[in-house]
């Protein structure tokens, strides 16, 4: 076991063997008759930060608790560093846990909080002192050893919780919505902190959240979940840009969904007639047969809005005329709802360039074909 938090050392270790830190094989979890997790196969590579993302009740926390040993799977196996741990009690799994409400021991000083895990690992006193000191430095709160948790702010308490978890050099760091109790600005800061710390230590981290921004900004991989099932798994860009189904497209980002029908290939594009009668060009693919019912997905950010003037030349395809029905100014960007001539309302978000469009103004709305996603229509 590497004795100190030398980042270089950890990286080297990581390179020589791309092993799995945690693995779930066919895991089911049922509470009475409610299925919380269904047929879950997951692999968590050593040194990565993986986010379990989904709405509340999707089973993400249950997975985390099963890895921690706080729940046992009804079916299936869990492996930590290749060893089956189904029957290993929580205190022998060597995991770091971070809770939403920090869960610092209110009756113990910061030192005793951070040193807690070391005490149960029989670390000698001097070494404990050094390691606690180093952990507090890592979370940028040196010198608070003698204070009580209640004397620190929420953000500081969560850092102490982080220090308490990393000081034991856990094989996996489990974080259950660790940032959601913090206010907006602090959350941003802590997000970067957690990200930096994770990269520095190279500790495998499993992060549970319902916040897509958290997931997208800090993960190596994202597992999107719904109703106890894995919906999609991949890198943040992959999951964001190529959602595999309606749920993922809807959960991540602001999307417009329009039902349509494939008309056929046309050059490099696949031509789709959407239900309001407009024809839209999507990237060409052999996967779609003419007549197939599809769902068109366009991210609100991918629309271009152009002024409806004589001297403006808009692209010929995928451009429609519409009226700004509603808009909300959000500082850096503006969210528009544009109604087309045939009544369809599109949601577009664009950066504020010169002057935002006014309500009632006629605009041209365009989406490049490469940003038109097609999904198989679900019932």
């Amino acid at each position: 076991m590497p004795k100190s938090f030398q980042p270089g050392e950890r990286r080297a270790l990581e390179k020589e063997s791309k092993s799995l830190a945690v693995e779930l094989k066919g895991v089911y979890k049922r509470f009475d008759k409610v299925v919380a997790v269904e047929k879950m196969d997951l692999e968590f590579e050593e040194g990565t930060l993986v986010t379990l993302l989904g709405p509340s009740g999707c089973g993400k926390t249950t997975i985390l608790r099963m890895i921690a040993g706080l729940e046992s799977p009804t079916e299936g196996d869990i492996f930590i560093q290749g060893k089956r741990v189904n029957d290993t009690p929580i205190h022998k799994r060597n995991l770091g846990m971070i809770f939403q409400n920090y869960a610092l021991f209110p009756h113990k000083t910061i030192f005793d909080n951070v040193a807690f895990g070391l005490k149960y690992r029989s670390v000698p006193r001097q070494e404990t002192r050094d390691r606690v000191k180093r952990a507090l430095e890592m979370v940028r709160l040196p010198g608070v050893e003698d204070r009580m948790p209640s004397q620190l702010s929420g953000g500081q308490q969560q850092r102490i919780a982080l220090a308490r978890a990393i000081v034991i050099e856990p094989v996996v760091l489990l974080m259950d919505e660790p940032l959601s109790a913090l206010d907006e600005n602090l959350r941003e800061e802590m997000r970067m902190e957690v990200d930096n710390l994770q990269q520095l230590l190279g500790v495998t981290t499993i992060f549970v959240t319902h916040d897509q921004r958290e997931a997208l900004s800090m993960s190596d991989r994202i597992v999107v979940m719904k109703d106890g099932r894995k919906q999609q798994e991949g890198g943040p860009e992959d999951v964001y840009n190529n959602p595999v189904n309606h749920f993922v497209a809807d959960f991540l980002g602001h999307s417009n969904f329009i039902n349509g029908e494939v008309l056929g290939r046309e050059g490099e594009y696949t031509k789709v007639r959407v239900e309001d009668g407009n024809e839209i060009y999507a990237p060409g693919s052999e996967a779609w047969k003419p007549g197939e019912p599809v769902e068109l997905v366009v991210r609100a950010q991918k629309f271009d809005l152009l002024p409806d003037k004589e001297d403006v030349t808009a692209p010929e395809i995928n451009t429609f005329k519409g009226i700004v029905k509603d808009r909300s100014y959000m500082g850096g960007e503006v969210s528009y709802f544009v109604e087309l001539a045939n009544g369809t309302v599109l949601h577009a978000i664009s950066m504020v360039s010169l002057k935002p469009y006014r309500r009632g103004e006629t605009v041209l709305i365009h989406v490049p074909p490469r940003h038109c996603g097609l999904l198989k229509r679900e019932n």
Partner: protein
Amino acid sequence: MESKPWKPAALLAPAVSAVIFLLVIPVCFIVVYSFWLRAPSGADIPAFQFGNYAKFFEDFFYPSLLIRTIRVSLETVLLCLVMGYIPAYFFYRTESRIKPFLLILVMLPFWISFIIRTLSWINILGDTGLINHVLMKIGLLDNPLSMLYNEGAVLMGLIQYLLPFMILNIYVSLEGIDKNLLEAARSLGCTEWQAFREVTLPLSLPGVSAGCLLVFVLTSGTYLPPMILGGPGNDMIANLIFKRVVGTLDWPFGSAISTILLLLLGVIVYTYNRYLGINQIFKSLQ
């Protein structure tokens, strides 16, 4: 907002007047009475003298009752603590659906008169009571065990009266403990028992402390269990007060004993709060 300086006072008035009329004034009456003289005729004469207090300390008999009261109170506290923590902890940990029902059972005794509940122990512990009856029926005993009219019976009566107070105080305190703390302790390497010692027990101390204090104070002021279940040697200080005031109608002396008990309990409660630091524990929990 318009500030109305009289508003806080007006809002506090009902509570303050209740405390004054129901608590402060009656206690003042007792204290004043304790200085009065009792004429041989039996009449109470207004006076300011310490004769009643002197009488209490003249003979070791009276102070010895005070000492016994404190000893029995401490025994009751200790027994209630051990017998109360376990069910309280059970209520805290159980996820049973009948938990609300079980909690009502704890409070159920309060629905029955304290006197009836105390008297009923005679039917259980008496010579022809349930226990002796059963033991003799099955042939384990030839002669009844005498279980009544001793300190054991008094303690039994006190415990059945005070145990719910202890259970509820500890339970409320336990219920306030964030269960994530236990999970955090477990994830850091504690066994279930170690997590209890490190987290649950220390964080339940405010409830333990409050429960102990309440049981102690209530025991030292009660007279029914010793009167009904105790023998001649089991009287506590409240029995003495009862006998002086109700029996011999000696209000001045009874008041003096009451005042002594009040002062003693005041000192104990103050010291307890100060050195066991309940306030400190609460402060650290915010």
